[in-house]
């Protein structure tokens, strides 16, 4: 149970391990997760070659 309030929940101070959080209507943290790391990678393995090498023009798999 919480008291009704009109103002927005308070902005929390920075907590370095928290990337997101869920606050209840009283501004209490009810759930929180660490930062989300999105790592995109160039994948050369899909070229059908040893991914330790970059193919020369015309030397890769025929497509």
């Amino acid at each position, binding site marked *: 149970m919480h008291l009704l309030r009109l103002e927005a929940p308070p902005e929390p101070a920075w907590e370095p391990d928290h990337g997101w959080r869920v606050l209840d*209507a009283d501004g209490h943290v009810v759930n929180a997760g660490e930062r989300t*790391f999105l790592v995109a990678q160039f994948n050369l393995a899909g070229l059908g070659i040893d991914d330790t090498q970059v193919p020369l023009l015309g030397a890769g798999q025929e497509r």
Partner: protein
Amino acid sequence: MAAIDQTLVSLILNALTPTGAAGIPGTALGTPVGTTAMKLRLNSALSTASAAGTEIVNGTGYAAGGFTSLGASTTSSAGSAVGVPLTTQSATATSAWSIVSFDLTSTAGVRGWFGPFNGQPIAVAIGNTFQITGGSGAAAGIQISLT
């Protein structure tokens, strides 16, 4: 392993993240995601390489298309990650949300990056507020890098 030069990594990251003034994309690599402020879209289903996830319904502070006013992220240099958002984003659920993934898009919804949230699915009951912590560089709630 074959890889990419770190300078080019930063060019790509900066062009596809809100590193320009007031959260517009950087322009060092043309303008592949437009020239106006980027958005952070929240989804109730996983995004894939071919399509965005199913967007959550509107709430207080969240409208279709995603969070706006992300702020200007710190630019990548020497291959460093870009942190998003600069400014903490908040929205209160007016119907229950299950938040799974996000898409970082242009104003018009063209996607740059997508990924699942750490700890997803995130249950947000009616009246509760979901926040993504803002900050400069490594302090931001979402870290985007390219290898």
